């Protein structure tokens, strides 16, 4: 039995490649699993705490044995000279105990596009961050922050004495360098960051003193502090935004990067430098030098720095000797010396290696569908399996193409709320949950988990999110689809035969969208609705989104629990990605100069509530958020199925010798999972 399953996992590799639908075979091959297998694997949400009272700070400091020889040889200053001033430290109380130094954390990555894999471990260089619950903003790179009463200014306070990984001081000048020489240079950043604007008006950065920086806006922008804590272009930290190669991060190592800028030599000189290294222009070279993942010479503020870059078969990192955090006993963090990520050309290989116990902690690329195989081999591989449910309402949301127009009859139906409600009521979510989520997900609407800040209440998770065939059939009759053909499917009202909808799915993702779609097709048969499931390559599916060509597309609504940080999976407001009406998203983001104005007054109301929230104080913004979610659920612009599950990076394989690893961690985009669990406190027992 055991070997049979393992072979099937392997067979998944072949099929994934042959058909482009990863994990499909392994999914359907997972034999009858006792229900709720996973619920025992969901532990208690826990994590390390930070100490903010300077009186409780440690007074003496220790360092990793790895660095001792260099200190002895005089190549590195003593540990107290490398740390910020004692009152300015980042002090962490580890989850369980003070750890031991050393070790090499082995992980998988899938190539240079997988920079988020390392970024998320190394996210401590964010200006602000969230605590382990993912709800409260706490300091990170900045020691503290303040929002002015009028909401127009957000001031951050840096840690005096903090240093870059090469030992050079880290000050407000590094912020001003980024702002003046990187951000305001149109060759480097052609379009301003949306996060650094309020209502289309640019923000400014100002240096108050060497350790104080202010972000100023022409209008109230109280939400900006969330932008600084979230996974945004301005707040996600130099490492992450460098990984994205978008020149974000709000600060940059001036002393190192100046050599690549024309301002500090000449355009010819920097272009020549670029050409000599094989780059087509100085901007390309700068982009490369700006990425910690690609450039191991870049000074960083992260716990680990790259040794062997991401474009080699092994992406490896070692500790930053100047990292600015200590534990409560005064040990400089991180505990773990090295991180080695080995290249898995496909995720099936990564899963197989995890089953063989070759990774120490791995949550990325692990498939929920392999859970039974993971559990069977847990003893042999000396690891345990943790499930971290997500906070978003639906791992498979059926996003309706609200601005689809190609077929007038279908367009008319999709714009009809009753029709959308009927489709939503025709789905047996419990069956989906058992079949594809092994019973660990929550069935319901697209609304986020009830304990998230913008949740309008648990009742909204069930609204239009249950199976009710009777009501569904009544609604369909009501919208004029009462005539059926011989097979029991409803006929179009324009006399062109059977109503056939089309649902686009994408293969090879964390969730087997196509298989879920096929099951929904069977379920909708009971309400007489025929739907073709069309699996498309991801890029094609997204391109069709952009052209308003998809009637329906299945995609996760991950990140939507933080409505204002990441709205695109909840509302059509972001023209970079919108599954539920690109024309409307363009209209919103261009302030009505492009795209198409939605004809649904409720959507316009949601847009207004959304736009206004950014300037509001916390309480009012939360009110708006809840109201928007009520509208989204009531209007059902996306149909929720099963969510709050670990399908999306929530299957965590942890070797039994790892310490301070939480039983359950918050699994969310804004939390940069696993960052909020503070990998700097993980250690080898």
């Amino acid at each position: 039995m055991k070997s049979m399953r393992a072979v099937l996992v392997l067979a998944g590799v072949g099929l994934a490649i042959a058909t482009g639908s990863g994990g499909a075979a392994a999914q359907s091959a997972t034999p009858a699993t006792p229900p709720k297998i996973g619920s025992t694997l969901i532990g208690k949400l826990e994590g390390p705490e930070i100490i903010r009272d300077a009186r409780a700070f440690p007074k003496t400091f220790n360092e990793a044995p790895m660095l001792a020889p260099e200190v002895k040889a005089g190549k590195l200053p003593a540990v107290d000279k490398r740390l910020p001033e004692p009152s300015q430290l980042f002090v962490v109380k580890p989850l369980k105990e003070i750890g031991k130094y050393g070790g090499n954390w082995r992980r998988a990555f899938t190539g240079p596009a997988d920079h988020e894999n390392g970024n998320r471990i190394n996210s401590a260089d964010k200006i602000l961050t969230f605590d382990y619950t993912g709800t409260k903003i706490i300091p990170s790179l900045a020691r503290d922050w303040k929002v002015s009463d009028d909401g127009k200014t957000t001031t951050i306070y840096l840690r005096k004495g903090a240093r870059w990984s090469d030992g050079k001081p880290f000050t407000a000048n590094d912020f001003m360098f980024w702002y003046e020489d990187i951000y305001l240079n149109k060759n480097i950043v052609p379009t301003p960051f949306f996060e650094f604007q309020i209502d289309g008006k640019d923000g400014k950065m100002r240096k108050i003193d060497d350790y104080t920086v202010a972000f100023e806006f022409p209008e109230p922008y109280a939400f900006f502090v969330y932008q600084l804590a979230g996974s945004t272009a301005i707040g996600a930290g130099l490492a992450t935004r460098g990984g994205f190669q978008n020149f974000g991060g709000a600060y940059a190592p001036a002393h190192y990067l100046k050599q690549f800028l024309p301002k500090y030599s000449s355009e010819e000189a920097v272009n020549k430098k670029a050409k000599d290294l094989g780059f087509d222009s100085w901007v390309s070279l700068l982009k490369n030098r700006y990425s910690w993942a690609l450039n191991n010479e870049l000074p960083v503020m992260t716990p680990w720095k790259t040794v062997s870059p991401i474009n080699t078969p092994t992406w490896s990192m070692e500790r930053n000797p100047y990292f600015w955090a200590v534990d409560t006993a005064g040990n400089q963090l991180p505990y773990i010396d090295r991180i080695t990520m080995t290249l898995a050309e496909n995720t099936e290989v990564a899963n197989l290696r995890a089953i063989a116990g070759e990774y120490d902690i791995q949550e990325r690329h692990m498939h929920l569908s392999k859970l039974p195989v993971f559990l069977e081999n847990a003893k042999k591989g000396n690891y345990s399996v943790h499930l971290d449910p997500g906070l978003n309402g639906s791992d498979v949301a059926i996003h309706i193409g609200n601005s689809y127009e190609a077929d007038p009859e279908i367009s008319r139906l999709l714009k009809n709320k009753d029709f959308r409600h009927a489709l939503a009521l025709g789905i047996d979510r419990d069956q989906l949950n058992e079949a594809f989520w092994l019973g660990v997900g929550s069935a319901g609407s697209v609304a986020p988990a009830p304990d998230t800040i913008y949740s309008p209440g648990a009742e909204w998770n069930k609204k239009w999110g249950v199976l009710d065939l009777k009501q569904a059939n009544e609604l369909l009759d009501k919208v004029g689809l009462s005539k059926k053909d011989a097979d029991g499917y409803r006929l179009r009202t324009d006399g062109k035969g059977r109503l056939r909808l089309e649902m686009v799915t994408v293969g090879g993702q964390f969730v087997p969208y196509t298989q879920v779609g096929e099951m929904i097709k069977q379920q909708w048969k009971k309400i007489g609705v025929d739907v073709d499931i069309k699996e498309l390559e991801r890029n094609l599916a997204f391109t069709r989104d952009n052209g308003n060509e998809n009637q329906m597309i299945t995609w996760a609504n991950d990140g939507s629990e933080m409505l204002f940080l990441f709205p695109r999976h909840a509302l059509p407001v972001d023209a970079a990605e919108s599954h539920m009406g690109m024309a409307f998203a363009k209209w919103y983001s261009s302030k009505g100069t492009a795209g198409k104005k939605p004809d649904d007054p409720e959507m316009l109301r949601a847009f207004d509530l959304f736009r206004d929230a950014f300037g509001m104080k916390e309480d009012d913004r939360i009110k708006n958020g809840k109201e928007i979610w009520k509208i989204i659920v009531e209007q059902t612009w996306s149909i929720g199925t099963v969510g709050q599950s670990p399908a999306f990076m929530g299957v965590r394989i942890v070797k039994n010798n790892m310490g301070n690893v939480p039983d359950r961690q918050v699994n969310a985009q804004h939390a940069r999972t696993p960052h909020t669990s503070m990998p700097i406190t993980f250690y080898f027992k």
Partner: protein
Amino acid sequence: MVAYVVRRLLLAVLTVWAISVLSFIIIHLPPGDYVTSYIASMSASGSAVSEGEATALREQLGLDKPITIQYVKWMGLMLQGNFGMAMEWGRPVSDVIGDRLSLTMVISVAAILFTWALALPIGIYSAVYRYSFLDYVFTFVGFIGLAIPGFLLALIVMYIGFAYFGANVGGLFSPDFAEAPWSMAKAWDLAKHLPIPAIVLGVAGTAQLVRIMRSNLLDELRKPYVMTARARGLPEYRVVMRYPVRVALNPFISTIGYLLPYVVSGSIIVSLVLSLPTVGPLLLKALIAQDMFLAGTIVLLLGVMTVIGTFISDLLLMWVDPRIRLGRQ
């Protein structure tokens, strides 16, 4: 002779140019561009690219310009020996391919050597001792080898390695050695990992070559000159090896044209399954990401290799087979 070579060369250059145009067009055929694909892949891994960032990326990569201008820009760069930037990798294309080229060649050459070392003797044996017990065995095994797709074999070999030998799954190095500088120990580590991909990649080719060799040699063995040689009392070994085998080798040589591109790309699917850091998976990922410079350069490289390979096999055929040599003059 010289005129022939020059003509072939000119034709080769023209072919390469045509390949460059074609590959560029093919890469642009799928909908969307690199930035669409980037946004989609970020979304799939729970991260986001904003609209402003997308616009900025398009502008910086020149994707907002018409395809003809992009092609001219690419051509211009290439004439200066610069193949452009690999978008996903943030590095020059030549570096990205260069990193993987040597390992790819090691694997491919190992696979080819494995194929030849096995296929030639078996082919000869099967032809000479036609319908013998071993011929049936080889034929049987050969057909199985032909019938099993490479990736399936790779999966089975990987599973056996994992389940019974506790071997590292996939890859070319143990994790301990992947980062280490080159040393005897590392070379030995590579040598230990090499047989699996070499065998998997070689098996299908072996079966095919055995069949080709066998049928070619059978044709030759029936010919009167062989009978004459036998009649004159030549030892059986010389009868077979001296002429019929040489003639039967022709098809081998004419496939060199296809071997060369194979050597630089490796097998895409098998490499992907076995997680080998070769050019094959690189090409696949570049195509999926619509990284036109990287994909374009690899496709072009494969084209050039095919052209050069065909050219070389033409020359070799002339050298090996006097009939072609004489016929040409």
